[in-house]
């Protein structure tokens, strides 16, 4: 709620500046400068308000599932996951999901040792979510070798 209030405040501040630009009222100019200075901070403050809240727009991609929770009263699935290929900080997403789909998903997920979920789509909140058979990259393939095994110049 406070997030929306802050964004509403931002719209108000920009409107004050626009009115001041077009109407050139002398008394409004200091107010417009103050509104601009406040407007610079409002998006940052609103970002701080949203930290810890679930993201309803998960980007397409593969995710390592850490935990999940279905709110069947609201048909909403909350996923606590780490995006593959991104940084290691986990994220929390929310996706519209019903109990039947959730049970089917958890049944198939039990077959995998590494629970990697692929999320695609998202048009009209209709996400396509499947488990994928994930094989971790082999870091030792090719001519790679441990540093301690590499030949020394005097070998």
């Amino acid at each position, binding site marked *: 709620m406070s997030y929306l209030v802050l964004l509403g405040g931002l*719209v108000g501040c920009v409107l004050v*500046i626009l009115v001041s630009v*077009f109407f050139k009222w002398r008394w409004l100019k200091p107010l417009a400068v103050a509104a601009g200075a406040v407007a610079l901070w409002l998006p940052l403050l*609103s970002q701080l308000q949203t930290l810890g809240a679930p993201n309803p727009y998960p980007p397409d991609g593969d995710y390592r599932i850490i*935990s999940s*929770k279905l709110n069947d009263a609201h048909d909403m699935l909350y996923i606590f996951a780490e995006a593959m290929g991104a940084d290691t900080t986990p994220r929390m997403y929310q996706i519209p999901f019903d109990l039947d789909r959730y049970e089917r998903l958890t049944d198939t997920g039990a077959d995998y040792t590494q629970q990697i979920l692929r999320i695609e789509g998202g048009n009209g909140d209709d996400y396509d979510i499947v488990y994928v058979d994930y094989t971790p990259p082999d870091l030792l393939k090719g001519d790679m070798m441990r540093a301690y095994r590499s030949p020394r110049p005097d070998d």
Partner: protein
Amino acid sequence: MTDLISFLLLYAMFAATLCFLFAMLFVHDTRHWWMRGAVVTVGLVAVALPFFLAPKTLGFPSPWPPEGRYELLGWEIDEADGAFYVFVQPEGQAVPRHYRLPFDLAVALELQKVTAERSIYKEMTLEIAKGPKRDQPLYDFTFERVFPDE
């Protein structure tokens, strides 16, 4: 990292639009139609950009968890970053939250043990209290076994 960079880029664009509007406050000749059009367009962009900024940080952990009792739904131990990331459900609320807690080796070992034997626990709770600093709260994990005598 990509999220953070795109967040910074969008914020820089937002700041630039506000700077343009600031400059127009002190330009007295805005009679030309194209100048008026530019001011309105930049004003609309300044209003719209923060709405594109929001999804860039949504879902990230909050380092300032409020005091209270939570149902523990999941966790991730990040020793390199010196943090626990917890996925918790506040009491009486429908939407879970994501918090960052300071790392503690004894707690990390306990969490690792619980991860290995997760099925023997029926209730996991997290109690957060005020700490010495806002981003260093005091916390206590409680794990209740299904069969307490074992």
